[in-house]
């Protein structure tokens, strides 16, 4: 291995690391020799990249296909107003290179998928997963297992955060559990709260992504005990932290006793996303906003249900009956069975899910307002706020 030398400037820059006995000069050299791949430059990727760059990781790879959007700036502290519309990996590299000119950046302005993941991963020592969807979670997990790289995992939702270290081989050579040991299967689409009812408090990825960066640094330097075999869970609302044990699952298709999966798979299909879209499209009756208005003007009898959240209703509404999607099944008795019922949300996705749940209970009189309240505002009430 090529000898790592820290320049006078680097020794000065990293002096607060070097004087810690657990890190020392050797630890700082390990950081410089390391190659870390950060998948996703969003809420988690922002603190991860900032701290890993500041810490002096020698080579940092960045994968993302997205461009910076104004709504990112609430939590993605890597970016500024000037970056809006710019590919994230480009904006990130510019900012990070200005922070630390001693780091080498390799950017991948593309979507990570089964065709490129192994090729990219094999060039790195550690992967940090800061993605935002289940297909990519399983892809990153499987690609890490197949290339033998530790996966520093973190995930957030609203006020909840999780951190763990997967596929980590300890000093005795024993390989720790991976994501499939913890969660063998993804939730069926539409079942757990998605981005539609989701969101995240802006500070949370700062907290969780920083913990993730710390685990990356621990793995590289070899100091302390990593979160391998443990899941850290943080609830920012109650300010509670809990640590759970994660153990290997004998039935894990990758790493269990009888492995059946030797390569990457189709992760969209694995997460049921394609099938769900088809199924949803086939089963739901729709009504356009024009037809809805005609019906209203002609005083036809119907019930209008709004399945959005209270804050959205307060922002703008069509005077429908508010039953947020999450409370729907507790309020089934409020929904008419003897007349037409029009269900709407912001643009049609949540109301489609509401209709599916109700149709499963036997409702046959439900119509989804096509395009939701946004279509209604655009067509008939342009002075009302779009959000």
């Amino acid at each position: 291995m090529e000898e790592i030398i820290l320049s006078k400037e680097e020794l000065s820059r990293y002096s607060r690391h070097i004087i810690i006995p657990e890190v020392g000069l050797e630890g700082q050299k390990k950081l410089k020799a390391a190659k870390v791949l950060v998948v996703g430059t969003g809420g988690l990727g922002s603190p991860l990249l900032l701290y890993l760059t500041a810490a002096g990781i020698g080579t940092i790879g960045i994968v993302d296909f997205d461009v910076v959007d104004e709504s990112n700036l609430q939590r993605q502290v890597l970016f500024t107003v000037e970056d809006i519309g710019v590919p994230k990996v480009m904006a990130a590299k510019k900012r990070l290179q200005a922070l630390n000119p001693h780091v080498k950046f390799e950017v991948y302005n593309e979507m990570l998928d089964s065709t490129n993941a192994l090729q990219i991963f094999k060039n790195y020592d550690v992967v940090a997963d800061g993605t935002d969807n289940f297909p990519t979670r399983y892809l990153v997990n499987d690609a890490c297992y197949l290339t033998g790289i530790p996966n520093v995992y973190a995930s957030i939702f609203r006020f909840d955060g999780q951190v763990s270290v997967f596929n980590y081989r300890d000093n005795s050579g024993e390989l720790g559990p991976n994501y499939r040991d913890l969660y063998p299967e993804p939730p069926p689409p539409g079942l757990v709260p998605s981005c539609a009812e989701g969101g995240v408090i802006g500070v949370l990825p700062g907290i969780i992504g920083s913990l993730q960066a710390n685990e990356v640094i621990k793995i590289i330097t070899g100091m302390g005990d990593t979160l391998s075999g443990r899941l850290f869970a943080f609830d920012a609302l109650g300010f509670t932290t809990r640590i759970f044990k994660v153990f290997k699952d004998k039935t894990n298709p990758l790493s269990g006793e009888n492995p059946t999966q030797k390569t990457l798979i189709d992760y969209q299909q694995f997460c049921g996303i394609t099938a769900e879209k088809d199924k949803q499209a086939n089963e739901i009756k729709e009504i356009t906003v024009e037809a809805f208005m005609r019906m209203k003007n002609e005083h036809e009898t119907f019930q209008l249900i709004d399945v959005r959240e209270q804050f959205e209703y307060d922002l703008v509404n069509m005077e429908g009956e508010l039953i947020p999607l999450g409370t729907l099944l507790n309020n089934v008795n409020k929904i008419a069975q003897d007349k037409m019922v029009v269900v709407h949300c912001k643009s049609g996705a949540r109301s489609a899910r509401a209709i599916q749940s109700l149709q499963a209970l036997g409702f046959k009189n439900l119509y989804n307002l096509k395009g939701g309240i946004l279509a209604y505002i655009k067509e008939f009430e342009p002075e009302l706020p779009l959000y």
Partner: protein
Amino acid sequence: MAQIIIPTPLRKYTEEQAVFTTDQPTVELAINELVNKFPALKTQVIDNSGKLRSFIKVFIGEEDIRGLGGEQATIGDKDVVSLIPAIAGGVSVSLN
């Protein structure tokens, strides 16, 4: 009474209740009691065959119930049962 901690993503189905207390002796009975009280939660945590969904982990203290007899794991008076769902968020907050 044992406590079941409801994670924030599932609290909308429990009328924002964060902790559910129960006298039931096993995980299965305790969760049945919980979902009977909040029917909207049932489809979230129980599958069509009546089993706990695999993307919701159940821990007693820090131990995964898989190592304690699964859903038949016994819970004591002072136990804290945590439901930990898989979450994947991080970026998107758009409202459909």
